[in-house]
């Protein structure tokens, strides 16, 4: 009923390509998040679905109807804006009923629908207030009520929670999920906050530099990222990336002595190839715990550099021994640095020598273009049980 399709959609501005050859197929009733850093084209993509921006190339379909050249009002959509965009000269009732009044609904029908919508977002008794008399959260709820009152086929949200404080944001997040369940509408949600994307969506579409990087359920994006960008963007703190190269017997890092043994031909790489090994902080273990890790690598000797106690866990920045970190203040993970998360009762102190092992079933290998080659490097050269173990790792 309200499937949304983007076919080869591009948007070029004078000399910038905001969205490049985007293909999206969003099923009816799906809650989909467009995530990516600032300027990745996620808002432009949404504006093209809304009809506020016309694509330079490609086709936009909503519910099997080609809407590429239709104005926003004829697309059966409604939208919640980042800056809320309530009409300041209208009270709450007038704001919510704006779209209904434009469509010449009966007065009773308008009243009934406004009351229902206000009920859903818990705004009863505030219908005669002006927007400037309300708090940020209340205004946001009015904006959502205005969007749901018309019973749209597709519900677009452009960072609707970005301007709310942290506590309210978490509350509204669960409210939105509840709303999605009640409304059974397709929701396209734009955010740069990967926590919102992870918690709310059925599928995440990760965008970077105007191109779709991966579209998959949140946990697939987390466990099997399609490329380095998705791997480092999804997850907080982000994945460790260790540059290195393929040897005859596996992987060897460019800095430090991180070695992972696997059969290059089984994985599909050739010895000598430049690759990047990815491992999430929670898959790095102190070598004391190596028995608890089903498939551990050889121990890597490191020194702990900085500790970040978070309360429920501690983030430990480890330096592989032969790297001098003194001069490097660049943003992002340092090539010789590995971030490990340990339990709150760990006795690691700063400047201590720590031997760590990596969980082989949670390793990711990316080629020189950043595309994923393999997730889980469980098999060892010549080991018979490798296939079985890998299947387990992929699970």
């Amino acid at each position, binding site marked *: 009923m309200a499937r949304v399709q983007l076919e080869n959609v591009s948007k070029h501005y004078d000399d910038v390509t905001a969205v490049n050859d985007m293909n999206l197929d969003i099923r009816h009733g799906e809650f989909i998040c467009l995530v990516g850093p600032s300027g990745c084209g996620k808002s432009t993509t949404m504006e093209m679905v*809304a*009809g*506020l921006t016309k694509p330079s190339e490609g086709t936009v379909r909503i519910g099997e109807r080609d809407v590429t050249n239709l*104005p*926003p*009002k004829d697309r059966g*959509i*409604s*939208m919640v*804006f*980042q*800056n*809320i*965009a*309530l*009409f*300041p*000269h209208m009270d709450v009732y007038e704001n919510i009923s*704006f*779209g209904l009044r*434009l*469509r010449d609904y009966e007065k009773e029908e308008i009243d009934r629908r406004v009351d229902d919508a206000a009920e859903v977002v818990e705004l009863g008794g505030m219908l005669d207030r002006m927007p400037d008399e309300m708090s940020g959260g209340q205004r946001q709820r009015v904006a959502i009520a*205005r969007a749901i009152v*018309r019973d749209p086929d597709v519900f*677009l949200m452009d960072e609707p929670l970005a301007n709310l404080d942290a506590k309210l944001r978490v509350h509204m997040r669960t409210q939105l999920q509840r709303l999605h369940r009640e409304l059974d509408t397709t929701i396209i949600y734009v955010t740069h906050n990967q926590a919102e994307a992870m918690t709310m969506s059925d599928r995440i579409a990760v965008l970077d530099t105007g191109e779709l990087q991966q579209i998959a359920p949140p946990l697939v994006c987390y466990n099997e990222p399609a490329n380095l960008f998705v791997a480092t963007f999804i997850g907080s703190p982000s994945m460790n990336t260790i540059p290195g190269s393929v040897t005859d017997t596996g992987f060897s890092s460019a800095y430090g002595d991180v070695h992972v043994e696997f059969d290059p031909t089984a994985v599909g790489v050739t010895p000598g190839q430049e690759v990047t090994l990815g491992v999430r902080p929670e898959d790095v273990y102190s070598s004391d715990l190596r028995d608890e890790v089903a498939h551990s690598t050889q121990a890597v000797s490191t020194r702990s550099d900085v500790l970040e106690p978070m309360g429920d866990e501690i983030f430990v920045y480890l330096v592989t021994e032969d790297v001098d970190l003194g001069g490097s203040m660049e943003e992002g993970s340092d090539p010789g640095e590995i971030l490990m998360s340990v339990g709150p009762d760990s006795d690691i102190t700063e400047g201590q020598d720590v031997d760590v092992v990596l969980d082989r079933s949670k390793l990711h290998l990316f080629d020189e273009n950043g595309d994923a080659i393999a997730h889980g490097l469980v098999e060892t050269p010549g080991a018979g049980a490798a296939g079985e173990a890998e299947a387990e790792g992929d699970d």
Partner: protein
Amino acid sequence: MSDGSTRSDGGVQSDRHEPELTRGPFQRWVQKSIKDPKRVYRAMFYVATLFFLVTTLFPFYFLLVLAVTPDTGSLAVLPQLSTLEFGVFLDVFDRINFLRYMLNSVVLALSTTAIVLFLASLAGYVFGRLEFPGRQPLMLLILAISYFPPAAFFVPLYQLFTGNVVNGLSLYNTPGAMILPFSSLFMPLSIFILTTFYGQIPDGLEDAARVEGTTRLGALFRVIVPLSAPGVATAGVLTFIAVYNEFFFSQLMNNGQPENWAPIVGGLLSLQRAGQFEVTYGVMAAGSIIAVIPVAILVVVAQEKIVSGLTSGALKE
């Protein structure tokens, strides 16, 4: 110096030695002002205010004196109250159909204002909210029109409106002959004001209106115009006053008869003719004062909006 001021013999001081003793009040004021320059600024403020009050209000005062002094009496800046005749204000309506002239003026001004606000809103939206090549040159071109002397347009327009250019098209002695030139002459200022205002309305509000179901035009009149109320009021009031006070086309585009849409200027000239061979300053002055009243009321009512419209105009989201 101080020893000089304490001399007890009362001898005459020479300026060269003892300036203090010769100081009058003005010199003492200067002395204090040098220490405290704010006194000078305050004094300059009063002088300037007084100057503007006298120059603007005196003609008005003298118009009143002129009106109420009988034609037989002699003019004086401070006339004697006992000799004044206030019946002259009624004479204005007795001698000619002055109300019709005023109505003509108000109708002309209101229709021009309506046309100007509507068209300038469209232009203001385009100039204030859309990006297109040649926007700035086009805006400058429109503004340049307002710098032209109206007299430059008169002869061609007169020829056109009297039917000498296009056969059968004769607007002379109709409201169109005045509303058309008024609209085009006063449009640029309104476009400029509205462009500034419409440009400040956040894009999100227009987008929201369009998603909710309006066209671009609908968003303009349902959201952008209401939110720019001070700017629209300013443009409207300025246009109204400008048309109401206009002399050139008002006098030349009709034959001065009330039924031919002659505005107030025609009425005042008829009052002069109504005196046949004498110059009837009294009724003319009275008519002028009556004519000022609608504008005075409008300014008082809209003053707050005009001031806020001319100075700020910012609207926060």
